[in-house]
């Protein structure tokens, strides 16, 4: 049953550009796909392995700037810049590996500190990043020498990456690795008693989440073609956290839904725009108070009568 639904959704997503929607809609949906990619990484980190990171924007930014700089300064073709972005973010996350043995809130604060450091670097090292003036003139994405000029094609690129990340993480979730990291979240002592190498697996989650965020950053850079350090502050990290929380902790599909809500809602409700973060802060607290299964959980409840069991 779920396979049919998934296939249908995928087909609809990929068929969308052929119905000729407005370029702005395609642009917004591309941003949703990009945000969903980062959120999926955080879902692995937070929803599966239980590590609260409020610094994912740092890896998103590292990926974005790496891709932007490599393509503008060195003329690297997009696929190479894209891969390099992921690698750069993953390498940066190795610096964080010692932090993974910290627990809960201390880990969160450490990720916060790290993301502030990255932000300061992006802002101050003008010779490299352009500092507060930003990085301009980032070329569009290109595949096999063919530049992607049509919004529909850019959209398909973003959705493809998001889908690839989604299904990869889905496979991981259902594997021995996925069981182990869920076990770490639910009871770390018991996981150790089963022989799970807790610190190693936690670190692996960090690196994967960073890699994925880096890839998303690259897509972002070539989508909006202009980067500023202020795109990658704590607030961006918070946005990503909200996506995961609203969508439902532990649900990959929820991360995607959450990304859609966070990116699209301010557009749909223009008046909300200014009050956006205020509302999100309130939602964060509300979800913590009233149950963390988020939208995905709510949908799951609605669909229960229709499921096989």
């Amino acid at each position: 049953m779920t396979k049919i639904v998934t296939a249908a959704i995928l087909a609809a997503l990929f068929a969308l550009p052929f119905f000729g929607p407005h370029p702005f809609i395609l642009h917004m949906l591309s941003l949703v796909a990009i945000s969903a990619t980062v959120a999926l990484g955080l879902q692995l980190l937070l929803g599966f392995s239980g590590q609260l990171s409020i610094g994912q924007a740092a890896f998103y930014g590292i990926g974005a700037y790496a891709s932007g700089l490599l393509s503008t300064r060195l003329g690297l073709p997009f696929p190479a810049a894209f891969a390099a972005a992921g690698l750069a973010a993953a390498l940066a996350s190795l610096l964080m590996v010692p932090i993974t043995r910290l627990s809960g809130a201390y880990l969160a604060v450490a990720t916060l500190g790290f993301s502030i450091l990255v932000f300061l670097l992006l802002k101050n090292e003008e010779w490299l990043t352009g500092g507060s003036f930003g990085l301009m003139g980032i070329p569009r994405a290109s595949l096999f020498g063919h530049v992607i000029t049509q919004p529909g094609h850019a959209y398909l690129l973003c959705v493809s990456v998001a889908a690839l990340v989604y299904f990869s993480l889905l496979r991981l979730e259902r594997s021995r690795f996925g069981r182990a990291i869920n076990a770490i979240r639910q009871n770390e002592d018991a996981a150790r008693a089963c022989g799970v190498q807790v610190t190693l697996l936690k670190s692996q989650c960090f690196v994967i989440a960073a890699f994925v965020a880096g890839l998303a950053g690259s897509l972002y850079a070539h989508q909006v073609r202009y980067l500023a350090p202020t795109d990658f502050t704590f607030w961006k990290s918070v946005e990503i956290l909200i996506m995961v929380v609203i969508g439902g902790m532990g649900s990959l599909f929820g991360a995607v839904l959450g990304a859609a809500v966070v990116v699209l809602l301010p557009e749909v409700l223009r008046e909300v725009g200014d009050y956006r973060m205020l509302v999100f802060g309130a939602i964060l607290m509300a979800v913590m108070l009233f149950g963390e299964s988020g939208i995905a959980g709510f949908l799951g409840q609605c669909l229960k009568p229709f499921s096989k069991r």
Partner: protein
Amino acid sequence: MYLADLFAAGLAIGCVYSLVALGFAMIIRATGIIHFAQGELLMLGSMSALSTLWLMPRLPAVLLLACGMIASGALAVAMEFLVYRPLRLRRVPLMNVITATVGMSILCINAARILWGSEPLRYPELFSSSAYGIFGVRVSPQLVWIMLFGVVLMGLLQLFLKRTRTGLVMQAVAQDAEVAQLMGANLTRMMAYTFAIAGMMAGAAGVMFGSLFFSFFEMGFVLGIKGFVAATLGGLGSLAGAMLGGIVFGLIETFSAVYVSSAYKDAIGMVLLIAILLFLPSGLVGLWKRRS
């Protein structure tokens, strides 16, 4: 005498950090959570006091401080009763409570931005502009008063905790809530007092910082983290550690900003934070305990 200026500045900002750190320490001891909205209590106290000053321009500094403290204290208690206590009663996992404090922080920052705008707000001159001469050294009166206020507040807090009945009960609750309850402590009230005091300390720090520099809606974010760095440096969970950590961190930051780049001033705190969490988690107090 440039060194003396730096020293005074370091001590003054150190007092601000100490007050914030004390709030963190008290809340961690009582509830085990890192209160991410602590910095926002500082900010809201600072902004509220400033608004009061706009309404009553001739308010003396002490009353201004009191205004800030009352505002923050009240807000802290509100946070506790509206959000944190319900979460505790539902026995949600610790991570969820911490996430909720992140949400509270976001709410406060954006509420402040809507209420007071995004521009930094100046505090009018609170003290005379001529420098004082202390031990033959000329020091800015702002710094002197801040240090004075800071020390007095911290001293009062110590007296309260160690000499009054309520203070002792609060300490008992922080050590072992269950046993304290069995001994008749009213947990709800003690938690409220803990948050009230943590809020008041933050509010005072906010007024002090505002008078030294300026107030703006995001000030709590950075100052909150730095207060946390101070608390961690001193030794998380220790009140003496919070006070010590604040002063030490204030001095480290002020001197480093001069001798290292000032653009990376905030970075000093972040690097120190990560270093302490990784290598010296029990802080300076822990180091001292190990020696003795």
